């Protein structure tokens, strides 16, 4: 029993496709078996909603009169420096960028009130953004200064382009030291006072397609409330990471680079956030459809929280020093219960990635497909898998 994406799209067009989310498929497979479930279900929607630092947007602001060449100059959006190393009026705003006068961690832990992630959210929300730029002036682009308000609707292009999103699994962070630490995994209290994790587990896209059999370059996805595409493996993609018997990695492994039209997106699914003592970033909502082409793919999507394992890592020492040390393994059912056992002690858990928001995205996305608003795409190339030897290397300092 196998189907093609073209056949599934035909059913979607007719409004006849059977779509369930990655949580619902679990019960369905348990009830009816893989064979029956594969026959019945056409698409499984997966989703995640969590902080993703390697995110940002490129914008083309249009030419002023007289013209200015921002490339090689300086550009600030709501006081936040944007990258201006492109042509005249193309700029890139990164999620973690901070105003130059932000005190950062001078008074520890820094508050990081407003940064790139927040500016992206404001832009998407349709708010005016203050642009201040200076340039060196050329014969063809004589202007040296520009100060104006810009708005998403007036930009020629506004494109969310994230080099690394949707991590396939992540660490569980604890703090073994005797003082509170402030990390990208949140506030971690001394002596294992809490444990933070960051994955939607059984709903998470790449955990439902562990060997990248359907998610590839060219996959059309739900991105930030609009439509986007997977355009490459994400940076630090590490398919050769250790895996369990069910092929699901038990450490951070695959990642995705994604792109999509910012003008279609919503500030509900692109949210600028602050991590005290760490900085600012952007929470991104992503949904990825998995076409149920055969039983193997169906079985993968039925993965449950208790079958997905993650490593407990000490963020006071092992992580910052780049040591690959694990304090043990836990699964997402344990993590989601609110309490895990680490070194024979109960530790309360919290998540940075919102499971309930991921479920909301998976549900909305399901409706899009059911209503024929969204068609699946055939990947034009596949992501490097475990057998390619592709891996994530540390820096060799010279």
């Amino acid at each position: 029993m196998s189907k093609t994406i073209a056949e599934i799209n035909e059913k979607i067009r007719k409004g006849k496709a059977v779509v369930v989310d990655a949580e619902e498929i679990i019960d369905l497979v348990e009830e009816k078996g893989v064979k029956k479930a594969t026959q019945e279900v056409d698409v499984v929607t997966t989703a995640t909603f969590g902080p993703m630092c390697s995110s940002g947007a490129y914008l083309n602001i249009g030419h002023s009169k007289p013209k200015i060449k921002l490339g090689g100059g300086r550009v600030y959006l709501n006081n936040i420096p944007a990258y201006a190393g492109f042509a005249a009026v193309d700029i890139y705003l990164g999620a973690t960028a901070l105003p130059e006068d932000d005190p950062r961690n001078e008074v520890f832990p820094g508050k990081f009130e407003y940064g790139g992630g927040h500016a992206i959210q404001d832009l998407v929300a349709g708010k005016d953004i203050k642009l201040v730029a200076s340039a060196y002036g050329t014969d063809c682009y004589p202007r040296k200064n520009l100060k104006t308000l810009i708005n998403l609707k007036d930009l020629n292009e506004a494109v969310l382009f994230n080099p690394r999103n949707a991590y396939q699994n992540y660490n569980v962070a604890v703090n073994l030291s005797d003082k509170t630490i402030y990390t990208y995994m949140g506030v971690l209290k001394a002596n294992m006072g809490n444990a933070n994790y960051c994955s939607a587990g059984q709903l998470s896209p790449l955990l439902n397609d562990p060997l990248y059999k359907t998610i590839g370059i060219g996959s059309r996805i739900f991105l930030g409330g609009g439509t986007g595409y997977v355009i490459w493996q994400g940076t630090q993609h590490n398919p050769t990471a250790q895996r369990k018997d069910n092929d699901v990695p038990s450490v951070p492994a695959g990642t995705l680079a994604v792109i999509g039209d910012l003008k279609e997106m919503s500030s509900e699914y692109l949210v600028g956030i602050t991590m005290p003592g760490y900085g600012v970033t952007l929470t991104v909502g992503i949904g990825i459809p998995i076409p149920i082409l055969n039983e193997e793919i169906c079985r993968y999507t039925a993965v449950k929280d208790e079958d997905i394992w993650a490593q407990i890592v000490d963020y006071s020492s092992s992580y910052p020093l780049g040591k690959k040390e694990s304090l043990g393994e836990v699964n997402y059912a344990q993590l989601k219960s609110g309490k895990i056992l680490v070194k024979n002690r109960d530790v309360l858990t919290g998540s940075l990635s919102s499971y309930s928001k991921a479920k909301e995205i998976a549900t909305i996305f399901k409706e899009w497909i059911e209503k024929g608003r969204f068609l699946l795409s055939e990947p034009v190339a596949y992501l490097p898998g475990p057998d390619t030897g592709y891996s994530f290397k540390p820096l060799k300092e010279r």
Partner: protein
Amino acid sequence: MAKRRLVLTFPPKLVEEPITYRLIKDYDLVVNILRAKISPEEEGRLMIELSGEKSALKRGVDYLNRLKVNIQPLARDIRWLEEKCTHCTVCVSLCPTEAIVVDRNSMKISFNKNKCIACGACIPACPYKAIEILF
């Protein structure tokens, strides 16, 4: 007579220190304990109202500072801004009183104001600024 409502946070090693006794005996203050949470391995938290002469109050607070007790004014109100909350749950483990709890089925949080002691621990931890403190 002056009055101050404070939240005291102190490390485990200070749990043995008879703080309230000293405030009463040595600093001549009226100590009203509003709420307390002290367990041997964790940080202790004490919400107190101190009243007494202005100078006595100042000396009492200096004494606490010398002990390296973290002192914060007791908030009047903590507000959970539900529309900003994404239910990530990262604040939950920081709450000493289970004022923030998670429904493990929906993985959504709820905030029980009556249990909140306004310690403020959850506030900087919320990436979405969905919890507000009002003094």
